[in-house]
């Protein structure tokens, strides 16, 4: 009996070890493939110049249009998602406090929205675009990506708000704070680390998604100056270049993937750094 327990323990430990390290291995392997193929084609020119004539057939130029475009689109979408997401999260946690069933239904719906594939958001964004009389543009892309990341942001903010103890609000009120002062000086500070993490993760999701902007953002070799112009994004740049029959262009796709991976890793590290920095005052 005792021997069996020892073996059982070893088996569980072995499976856990294998599972954990296989995840790390897959990540490292992915980074190895992307970087080994992409670094060859990566240069200052790739990052800091716009595509010139015949770029997608092996001509000169770079992917600055896609880098800046992705940045514009993700920032715009994140701002829009915050404008919708923060009041929504507050509404769930403050106004619906007595209606637990409604609260849970909304949370369930948001979780379901989180799980919908981004191509569906793309198709919905396209339909919405036609309905509003827009054409493929930065604005249409921002709206579609905002639709994609808003449920993520609302649920993340919601989870942060749920963890803030009611006693902390009581402490603030008992010192003579108004609701606004409590929200800004206490709740916001207590949740800041979580809010920043949620924001950066939503931004990361927005910058890395190709399917949702496939029909709505269009594509251009220029950097858009107005919201009405089409915009290039890194995921679409990778997609278009990788579909090319020319080897050199496919290598450039991996260079764009290196840039995108770098941004995602930078966002992830920043989220970790900032959340740690702002978490030092958190009351647990």
């Amino acid at each position, binding site marked *: 009996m005792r021997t069996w327990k020892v073996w059982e323990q070893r088996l569980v430990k072995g499976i856990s070890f294998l599972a954990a390290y296989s995840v790390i291995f897959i990540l490292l392997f992915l980074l190895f493939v992307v970087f080994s193929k992409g670094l060859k084609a990566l240069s200052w020119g790739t990052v800091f110049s716009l595509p010139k004539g015949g770029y997608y057939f092996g001509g000169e130029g770079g992917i600055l249009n896609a880098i800046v475009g992705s940045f514009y689109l993700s920032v715009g979408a994140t701002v829009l998602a915050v404008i919708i997401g923060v009041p929504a999260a507050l509404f769930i946690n403050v106004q619906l406090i007595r209606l637990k069933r409604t609260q849970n239904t909304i949370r369930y719906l948001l979780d379901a929205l989180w799980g919908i594939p981004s191509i569906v958001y793309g198709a919905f964004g396209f339909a919405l675009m036609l309905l509003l009389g827009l054409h493929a543009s930065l604005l249409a892309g921002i709206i579609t990506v905002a639709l994609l990341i808003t449920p993520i942001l609302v649920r993340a903010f919601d989870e942060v708000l749920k963890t803030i103890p009611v006693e902390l*609000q*009581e402490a603030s*009120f*008992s010192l003579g704070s*108004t609701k606004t002062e409590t929200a800004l*000086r206490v709740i916001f500070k*207590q949740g800041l680390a979580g809010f920043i993490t949620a924001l950066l993760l939503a931004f990361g999701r927005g910058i890395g998604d190709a399917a949702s902007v496939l029909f709505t953002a269009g594509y251009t070799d220029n950097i858009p100056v107005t919201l009405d112009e089409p915009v290039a994004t890194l995921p679409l740049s990778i997609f278009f270049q990788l579909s090319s029959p020319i080897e050199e262009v496919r290598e450039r796709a991996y260079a764009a993937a290196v840039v995108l991976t770098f941004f995602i890793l930078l966002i992830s590290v920043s989220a970790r750094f900032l959340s740690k920095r702002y978490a030092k005052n958190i009351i647990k």
Partner: protein
Amino acid sequence: MITYPVFSYQKAKKPQRMVNHQEKQTPIIEVKGLNVRTREGEILKNINLQIPRNKIVVLLGPSGCGKTTLLKSLNRLTDLHKELQVSGEVLIDGVDILKVSRDLPIMRQKMGLLSQRPFPLPVSIYRNVAYGLKLKGIRSKDLIAHSVESNLKRVGLWDEVKNRLNSPANSLSIGQQQRLCLARGLAVKPAIILADEPTSALDPISTKIIENLFKELKEHYTIILVTHVLRQAVRLADHVVFMYYGDIIEQGHPDDILKRPQTEVLKKYLVDGN
């Protein structure tokens, strides 16, 4: 210009304001016909209570009898719990807190709060004590610094934290955090201290420090203390209120309540509690 009475540690031993004999006789809090209910049922049933000035009033009773709800009704923290329906009157120095709207923050500043577990604000030690002062509109850095120092000295925390005032409040031990919360409450110069089992999470040494502080503070403040510890009630109480299932069963001097209980339910509670 807002004038703020400065007090040092030594000065704090003197009364903060002159209270005439007649005022001393009148209760600082009067609860009339207070009912608190949820959809499920009643938590407080027609509570009528007078809290005398500058005394330690202990609310005693088994878990779930409504002590904390009564305490939270006094400074209207029941507003945070939307499921609670409150009716009746809670007169603080003659003003019904249940009826005020715009002046609620000012009314709440009259009552410092100590909860079961200390909840310092998510800022530094210094800013915790300064928080209430800034809410009062005090902008003078010198005045704030002076008040922070004197209140931290008052709760015996100054020597332990004077070299790390900018450290996060959560870096303190639980006992130190509770004293910080007391200093934070005292800084806004309340008349009443509401203490909801403030020593339940503390070690015996920290408990003793808080109890001794209460004994000193009652000279200038009215303290309403919720506790489960009968010995603590014996040590501190000037007036005991025994509650059971949302009702006040008995109240009076600790000797009468704790040594000569009149009701069976209190007798049983005291036997089980001991």
